[in-house]
Each structure stands twice: as structure tokens, then as C-alpha cells.
């Protein structure tokens, strides 16, 4: 059977590291027949501020991103086919993605195998004007292909396991145009100069995630997952997450989660190069730096209409808050710290905290 029809309205806010991002979303999913469903989602991000390395040489950015997604799903016997189209538009970045997947139940419905493929074409630009009067210079394109395989397996009447494997390949303009590298230069007041990043024009990554979910002796569930990532840029990342789900009666579901992530830096990354043009590829993007982050989150879902209302089977209200602490081991805060107290390369290592809020209402019909 296909999932229930539903409608969701969603509000989110990310606040931290100099950035405030407010998001709004609406989603509707409807079965046209018992075997065919359509889903549409509209998401708007409003960004105010910018991350620290962008602020090091740019003014505050204000931008709006609008994302539209349309999906169709078809169930035939034990096979589910899915096709989606996603378009994301900002004034300096346009992205179009087509995705197809197939899920097959087998071995007495104990096993579900999913195969997926996505193709994305991005147009990358740089705003050389201001937040209120933008002047966009289009720099190039980026092409991405995702190949993924997933297996979900019922192991016992209380235990399920899953494994997902995904390969992503990119080519084209892959750098963030608002970030720069820095190099030692005694001729400048700050002791360093800035230059454009130079990225490879290809990237291939592999990720594998394993997860298990266990139904405890009382009505509750615990989930553990681990993801391993590596790519051709030299980054290796590890993600561990633990979740606990505890329902209370038929109206409340409470959840808690803890997540830890760490990675090393890309091979062509440096916080401070010795000279300009030191190597062929150079980056100072904080996303490519050695870092770790820790997340603690809580979520509460209240079924304020557990038995339905009018033509709705069930209605719920959900609130979710998480706190993330980011810490970098080779990316320094050059925005607030510099000469004469801090010579280039001795500034404090960057760290910051962010809070993410979500609140959404879901109606099932």
C-alpha cells in the first residue's frame, strides 16, 4: 500500500554563526488511484547574514531561495516506482534535479531493496552588487549524478536494519565564489592577502550508512546509525547518531537525538598559504576544513485530533529544537581577530553554536 494522503505546513529557523535562515514549506500528497500518488512541495528559505569567511570580505547578504518539488509514485504488485523533479532558485544560483527510484519488496516482504538515480544541473553565479541592488555575474555550471542503493531488512519481530550506499559525482564550477584563500603578505596592513579559490573541476564521493531500529520491551524504539564518507578531495567523514522515540498514549510521541560528526580537511585546503599561488588547487572554504560538530535535539509530536476531524483521519502538531556546536581545528576566525594582537596564522580557531527550530502541522486524510 502507498502511504496515507497528507498535507503539511512547516516553519523553520536556523540561527547561528552570524546567519539567520527562516524557512516556510507546504506539502500535499494525494492518491489519485489506490496505486498512483502525486506529491507537491514548496519551500522558501530567507537568508539574512552570512557565514564568517564570507563576512571576512563581503557585506551582509540577504537572499531568498525558492524550491519546488513534484513527485509521482506508482505501486505495482511489490514494486514502487518514484519520479521527482526539484527546482531551486536563488538570484545567484539555479538548480534543477531529476530523480528516479525503484523499491522492491522480497523474501516474504522482509526485505526492501531500493535503487535510485539523480541528475542535477546547476547554474552558479556571484552577486557583485548589494543585497538590495544585486548585479549577478554568471560564472559557470555544475553537473551532479547520484547513484544510490538501499536495503531495509526485518531481522526479528522487534528489530529492523538498513544499509544505504551512495556514489556522487560532480563536474564543472564547484567552488563557492564568495569565499577566498589567504596567503602571507608582509606588504599588507593585515599581513595577508586574499585571492580567489581554485577548485578541481571534478569530485567523486562514496558514502555508506548503516542503521538499526529496535522496539524495546515497552512501547518505545531506539535507533543507532553510522555513516562513513570519503571523496577524491581527500575528505573522510564519520557520522554517528542515536535516537530514542517514546510515545505516551495515543496523543504524544517524544523523541531525543544525539549526533556526532567529524571530518579531516580536503587535500588542497589551507587556512593560510605561504605565498600566492602556492599550489594548483587552493581552498579556504570552512566546509572543507577539519572540523567536528555535536548535536542534541528533542522533538514532540501531539496528535490533537488522534481520531480525526471532518475528512481528516488524524492531525498532529510537531515541535523540534536542536542545538549544534561546531568546532574547527584548522580554520581560524579572521573576522574578529587580527594584528597587532594576532599575527596571521595565530588567530583563535573558529567555533560557534547554532540553534535549529522547526514547527509543523500535519493532516492525514
Amino acid at each position, binding site marked *: 500500500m502507498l502511504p496515507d494522503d497528507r498535507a503539511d505546513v512547516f516553519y523553520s529557523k*536556523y540561527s547561528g554563526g552570524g546567519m539567520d535562515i527562516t*524557512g516556510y514549506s507546504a506539502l500535499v500528497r494525494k492518491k489519485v488511484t489506490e496505486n498512483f500518488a502525486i506529491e507537491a512541495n514548496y519551500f522558501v528559505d530567507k537568508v539574512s547574514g552570512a557565514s564568517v569567511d564570507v563576512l571576512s570580505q563581503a557585506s551582509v547578504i540577504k537572499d531568498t531561495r525558492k524550491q519546488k518539488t513534484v513527485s509521482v509514485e506508482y505501486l505495482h504488485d511489490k514494486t514502487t516506482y518514484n519520479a521527482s523533479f526539484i527546482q531551486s532558485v536563488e538570484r545567484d544560483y539555479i538548480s534543477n534535479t531529476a530523480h528516479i527510484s525503484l523499491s522492491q519488496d522480497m523474501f516474504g516482504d522482509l526485505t526492501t531493496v531500493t535503487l535510485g538515480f539523480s541528475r542535477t544541473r546547476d547554474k552558479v553565479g556571484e552577486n557583485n552588487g548589494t543585497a538590495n541592488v544585486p548585479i549577478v555575474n554568471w560564472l559557470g555550471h555544475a553537473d551532479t549524478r547520484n547513484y544510490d542503493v538501499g536495503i531495509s531488512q526485518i531481522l526479528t519481530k522487534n528489530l529492523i536494519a538498513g544499509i544505504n550506499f551512495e556514489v556522487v559525482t560532480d563536474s564543472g564550477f564547484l567552488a563557492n565564489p564568495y569565499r577566498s584563500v589567504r596567503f602571507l603578505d608582509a606588504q599588507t596592513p593585515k599581513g595577508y592577502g586574499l585571492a580567489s579559490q581554485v577548485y578541481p573541476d571534478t569530485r567523486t*564521493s562514496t*558514502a555508506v*550508512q548503516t542503521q538499526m531500529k529496535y522496539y524495546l520491551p515497552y512501547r518505545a524504539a531506539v535507533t543507532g546509525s553510522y555513516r562513513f564518507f570519503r571523496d577524491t578531495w581527500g575528505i573522510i567523514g564519520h557520522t554517528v547518531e542515536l535516537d530514542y522515540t517514546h510515545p505516551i498514549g495515543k496523543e504524544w510521541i517524544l523523541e531525543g537525538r544525539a549526533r556526532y*560528526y567529524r*571530518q579531516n580537511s580536503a587535500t588542497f585546503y589551507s587556512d593560510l598559504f605561504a605565498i600566492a599561488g602556492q599550489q594548483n588547487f587552493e581552498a579556504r572554504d570552512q566546509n572543507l576544513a577539519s572540523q567536528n560538530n555535536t548535536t542534541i535535539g528533542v522533538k514532540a509530536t501531539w496528535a490533537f485530533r488522534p481520531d480525526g476531524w471532518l475528512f481528516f483521519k488524524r492531525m498532529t502538531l510537531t515541535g523540534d529544537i536542536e542545538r549544534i556546536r561546531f568546532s574547527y581545528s584548522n580554520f581560524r576566525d579572521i573576522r574578529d581577530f587580527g594584528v597587532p594582537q594576532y599575527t596571521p596564522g595565530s588567530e583563535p580557531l573558529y567555533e560557534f553554536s547554532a540553534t535549529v527550530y522547526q514547527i509543523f502541522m500535519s493532516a492525514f486524510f
Partner: protein
Amino acid sequence: MRSLTRVLPLSALLLLGACSIQPWVKPYERDRLADPIMAWDRDAVSAAYLDHIRESREGSRGATGGAGGGCGCN
């Protein structure tokens, strides 16, 4: 010898295919697995949003089960 190394694995696969695997968890034993708390993702929009936040700030990507689009997220 070389043909034997090709034939043996193929034969093993054929034999496995000829066996029908009986489900060791019977349908009437799956009531707990059908509980909404045992779903991998109960709220797809929320899960996709959190994935997006993490991919915008970390070097890792993929294998989380979602299909996202690109963005120029700074």
C-alpha cells in the same frame, strides 16, 4: 580450471534462486514493526530539511535516503 571458477559461483546462485526463502517473521508477528514509531522517517519534510542544513555545512553528503536539490547556501 578457469571455466570452473566461473561456473561454480553461477551454479551456486542458480541453486539459491531455486530455493524459496520462507519469512522467519510471520505476518501476524509484525504488529510492532507496523507501529509508526518503527518507521525510518515519519516526517519527510523535516528529515530533508535537517539533511540540507548538515550538507550545507559539512563536507560529507549522501547515503541518508533523501533526494535533494542543489543550492548556493553560504
